[in-house]
């Protein structure tokens, strides 16, 4: 994906004039799962045909959003009377709060955060309400691994609806090199209307998104992640933007947040973000990390090397070597080619 393409997708650069370039942009946005975001951001200067294509993407996202709202409703129902007030994370939160980042966004799973001592009750309640361990991770090793080392329960899938819920008690694995102060973030989460379900406030939403992208995992969907961060960032009030630095410091996410701010400037030319990033940072994200992020996102010829570095980094961040080596060995032994389930079509 070209840098100009990212800007066109979020609507801050005009769409390409040449038809073949436009087609390539749409193809690219679709392949990176941000066609819906592109559709929400680009509402003027759209031909009838492009409007049709955008409509397809928005209809799909619309379905996801309705599904998600219903899942939130079912979650409230399952937890009613317990006094537990889960925090809905990521896509679910954006949809529930009507954030710009939700516009056209596809959402598949519901991610929630609860206190660690509430986990047991939440799991019991969800199981009573029809969720059960997802087949993919319903084995002794995975179940034990999640519970012992991860930041979430093994995924639960609803038997009838097939939807997945991830119950988190932290934002990063227990074994991560540095962890964020999740209790502090939970304290300032706010209820959605009168419901017991909560979300982070705007600042913490940005902080969590940054942590998710830059402190966990190998940045596997760079275009989608950057668009999300950008859309969250531009919706911050100027007070919120100023509060970012102190908040990120307080919860221990300063590195991830400044990397996110750097990236927002780098890919979307948001000068304010860079100023904030420079100010926030004792140390800039190092050259190699910046190179790897840019190279992977822009799919430059050296992307494979960048991917490898980010992959190694993700494991370095996630777990100490004494866990990593047996874990990878175990995964390598247990590895089986994934069977492709054919899509069921009602025609021959």
């Amino acid at each position, binding site marked *: 994906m070209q840098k100009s393409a990212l800007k066109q997708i979020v609507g801050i650069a005009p769409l390409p004039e040449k038809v073949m370039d436009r*087609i390539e942009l749409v193809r690219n946005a679709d392949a990176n799962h941000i066609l819906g975001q592109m559709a929400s951001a680009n509402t003027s200067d759209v031909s009838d045909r492009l409007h049709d294509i955008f409509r*397809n993407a928005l209809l799909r996202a619309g379905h996801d959003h309705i599904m998600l709202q219903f899942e939130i409703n079912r979650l409230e129902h399952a937890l009613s009377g317990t006094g537990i007030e889960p925090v809905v994370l990521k896509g679910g939160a954006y949809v529930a709060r009507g954030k710009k980042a939700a516009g056209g966004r596809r959402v598949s799973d519901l991610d929630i955060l609860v206190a660690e001592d509430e986990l047991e009750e939440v799991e019991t309640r969800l199981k009573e309400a029809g969720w059960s361990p997802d087949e993919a991770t319903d084995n002794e090793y995975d179940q034990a691994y999640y519970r012992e080392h991860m930041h979430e329960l093994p995924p639960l899938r609803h038997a009838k609806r097939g939807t997945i819920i991830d119950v988190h008690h932290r934002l990063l694995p227990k074994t991560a090199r540095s962890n964020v102060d999740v209790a502090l973030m939970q304290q300032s989460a706010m209820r959605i209307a009168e419901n017991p379900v909560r979300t982070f406030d705007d600042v913490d939403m940005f902080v969590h998104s940054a942590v998710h992208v830059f402190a966990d995992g190998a940045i596997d969907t760079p275009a989608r992640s950057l668009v999300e961060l950008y859309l969250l960032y531009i919706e911050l009030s100027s007070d919120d933007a100023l509060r970012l630095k102190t908040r990120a410091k307080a919860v221990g996410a300063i590195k991830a947040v400044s990397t996110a701010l750097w990236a927002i400037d780098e890919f979307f030319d948001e000068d304010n973000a860079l100023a904030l990033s420079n100010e926030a940072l004792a140390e800039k994200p190092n050259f190699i990390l910046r190179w790897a992020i840019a190279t992977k996102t822009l799919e430059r010829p050296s992307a494979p090397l960048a991917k490898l570095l980010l992959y190694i980094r993700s494991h370095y961040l996630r777990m100490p070597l004494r866990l990593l080596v047996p874990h990878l060995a175990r995964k390598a032994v247990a590895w089986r080619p994934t069977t492709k389930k054919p*899509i069921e079509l009602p*025609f021959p």
Partner: protein
Amino acid sequence: MSAPSNVASYDRRDLRAALRNGSFTLHLGPFSHLVSGASEPLLDFLSDTYRDYSVELTPSDVTDVLLRLEAPNILRRFIRRQITPNPGFKVPAVPLPLSMSPLAFEMGLNLSVALKCCRFINVHAGVVADKDGAIVMSAASGGGKSTLTAALLQHGYRLFSDEFALLGLDQPLLHPYPRPISLKQETIPVVRDMVGDNWISKVVTGTPKGDIAYYRARASDLAQDKTSAKAKLVLFPKFEKGVRPIARQLNPAEAIMRLVPASTNYSLLGEPAFHAITGLLKNIRAYEITYGSTIDSLRLVEQITDQKLV
């Protein structure tokens, strides 16, 4: 940029170059399709079965469908050449020998329309229409839908589609998408006898679905590919050898419950899809018809529509 013109009006060399560059653009009904991947079997197929279809060699706008016909791996580009349709999302397509390119092309377009174009409710059904409205025919594979569709075309009906009933989300109108009619196995000789050899493509033999041939859409049907219609009748045809012809009227609820699982995107679209399908069935009748021969099926349609066909 050139104005769309029919396939027959282009030089084969230009068609080949456009397919190679990925700039070959097929316009049909509400959709436009950008196709890449040149092969001689595909060019043969296009210049025969698609001769009257409207095509541009450079697209004038973005397109609904982006289909790449490509080799499954680099080896298969050169040795015992194979081809798979790539519509831009993961599909469970088996690689086919290059000679089956027409099938890969048709499959690729079907998958794209079925799974991607959700601004219409997509029901797997044949649709034909006359001046009074459209007949929607929904059947399981082997139910004789294609044969009945072909037969009705010989009796004053125009082709909407043999595969997709495209139902508008805002208004319960059916939109034509007259792709060639795909004929399988024993239906090939039946339809060949009915319409004449001239209208049937070369048979692709030994495909995963057996023998397949295509019945070309008529230029007159293609000329009306933007004219939508209201439904006048819904049929659930069932071909059974040697059976006595019978028509059983279904109540609207039963008809709806049968159309819903035949849709590729009903559950995705939800409420508007429900309203559109109930709207489609408003004030019209639905029948399950069982028959053992084409002539019987036409007689049943005659009885139901009170219209002289044969």
